[in-house]
């Protein structure tokens, strides 16, 4: 079965042999997972967030498990874009699998510099803009929580990286995610991915301390799947560019739910921690899962969710 998809952007398309990508920050630079599956079998690899200069990130503890999910406050630790281009990218199978660089910066200008740097790397197929990082310049507001800032960052990256597909990763911590998506679309984004983590917190009752050194962290995993699905559905109805679904996907069934809700592709995040072959398995099992529901291509399923108003539960006649 052909489960390839193309993310048809406003400027650049991104062709994927299957709709299963890995989510940034949960799959290292990719090579960490090579022992558990064939990286070339993935639709694409979104590498962990990259900044212009190396960043140490937040102090530990940075991760904590929660009911059907986890919180993280890694805080953008990475060795910077030069290290990525020199040491990581060359080892990745970028000729066979699109490598998507997840980027963040503290200002629009810095975003542009970073995008320009990656624009010249043949190994990078697309840029995913992480607009959920703190905008240091604007006093703690996040780029992704303001439609004007979202547009500014998107168009800066769009201009600085004319050779690349530009994907904007949306934050769910907003009153109206569709508004942010439209802003990104209007500013030239080729696609949007949603969602990044939900802002959360955990405390240690005995020590009377937050469980994360950073106090606040991002919630991910199966717990947030209903929120992610809702965001994908809202965004897919609001924009014409493709939507990539992220949030709580751990198997092929989950992935197809997102496609049904309107996603063109999906990303596997925390699922990679449940089993390091999670993303590989989702990609491998997708054809069989499609067959089971009588679907022959991704287009046939995508966004075909029927209206709920006519809902009536169907039961098997007799069991």
């Amino acid at each position, binding site marked *: 079965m052909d489960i390839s998809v193309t993310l048809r952007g406003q400027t650049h398309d991104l062709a994927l042999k299957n709709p299963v990508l890995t989510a940034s*920050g*949960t*799959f*290292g630079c990719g090579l*960490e*997972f090579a*022992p*558990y599956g064939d990286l070339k079998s993935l639709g694409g690899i979104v590498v*962990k967030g990259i900044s212009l200069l190396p960043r*140490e*990130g937040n102090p*530990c*503890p*940075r*991760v*904590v*498990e929660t*009911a*059907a*999910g*986890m919180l*993280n406050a*890694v805080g953008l*630790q990475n060795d910077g874009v030069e290290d990525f281009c020199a040491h990581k990218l060359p080892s990745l199978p970028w000729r066979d699998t699109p490598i998507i660089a997840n980027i963040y910066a503290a200002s629009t200008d810095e975003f542009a510099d970073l995008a320009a740097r990656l624009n010249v790397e043949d190994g990078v197929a697309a840029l995913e803009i992480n607009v959920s990082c703190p905008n240091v310049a604007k006093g703690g507001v996040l780029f992704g929580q303001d439609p004007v800032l979202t547009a500014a960052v998107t168009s800066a990256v769009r201009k600085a990286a004319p050779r690349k597909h530009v994907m904007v990763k949306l934050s769910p911590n907003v009153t109206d995610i569709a508004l942010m998506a439209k802003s990104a679309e209007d500013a030239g984004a080729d696609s949007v991915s949603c969602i990044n983590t939900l802002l959360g917190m955990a405390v240690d009752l005995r020590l009377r301390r937050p469980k994360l050194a950073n106090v606040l962290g991002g919630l991910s*995993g*199966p717990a947030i799947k209903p929120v992610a699905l809702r965001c994908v559905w809202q965004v897919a109805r609001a924009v014409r560019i493709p939507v990539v679904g992220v949030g709580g996907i*751990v198997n092929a069934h989950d992935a197809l739910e997102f496609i049904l809700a309107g996603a063109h592709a999906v990303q596997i995040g*925390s*699922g*990679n*921690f*449940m*089993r*390091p*072959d999670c993303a590989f398995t989702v990609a491998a099992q997708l054809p069989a899962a499609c067959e089971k529901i009588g679907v022959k291509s991704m287009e046939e399923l995508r966004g075909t969710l029927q209206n709920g108003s006519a809902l009536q539960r169907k039961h098997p006649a007799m069991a």
Partner: protein
Amino acid sequence: MQIKPILSRLPALEVTPFGPAGPEGEYRFFALRLPRPSWKNWRPGQFLMLRPAAFGLELPWARPFSICHTTARCLICFFQVCGRGTRRMAQLKHGDEVNVWGPLGNGFAVEPDSQTLLLAGGMGIVPFVGYVNAHPKPWNTSMLFGHREPLKCYPVDNIHEYIPLDSLRETTPGELDNFIFTLNERMRDCAEQNGLVLACGPLPFLQTVRNFARELKARTQILLENTMACGVGACLGCMTRTSDAWPTPEKRGGLVQACRQGPVFWADQVKL
């Protein structure tokens, strides 16, 4: 000489409680026997990530455990119940599915001809079971074991067979002082012969060992049991800060992954 890790889906063979049951009939220490995965080899100090299917979606993370022991057909882990995951592991029944990936991390140094002192605190004894078994000249090794629960809660039989094991149970603050005194003496002896000290146990224990190592200039490795979400280098949750003695200059004073650059570190190369 990296050992390539493998992911296996194994049926649990047996969970055996160790030591006496608590006041409510509950056990806290268990050996978990699994079929041996198709690993070629592994190094003591290396660990594996273990996730029973029974974790469902509620506990998304696997749990890290030192590889205790392997036989031709079996892999044995040894664990203490201390939270939601280990509580469920204690309830595993024959045939229940367990996902396991490993061997992971780097393992303890083996210097067959150096006098080697093994320092274990509580569950920190686990990696030494395999170490003693694998050591080509076990007569060059000895162990000091500090513990709070009765000795039969721990997997000591396998160690006893090969090497001398001094165990000190800590039930009062005085006994702890006594243990620390002995620890210092033993490390001093070892350092004087330019021996190798290997330590595994809770953080305060490792901090004590690290302080003595510095004082006595004892060549010392410690195994750090940091919280781990992935075990493979992806989550960046298991970081440890290095000292100025870290071998590669660009990482000096920076953060390294306990799951990849560790879990065994030279004591002088990390900050605790």
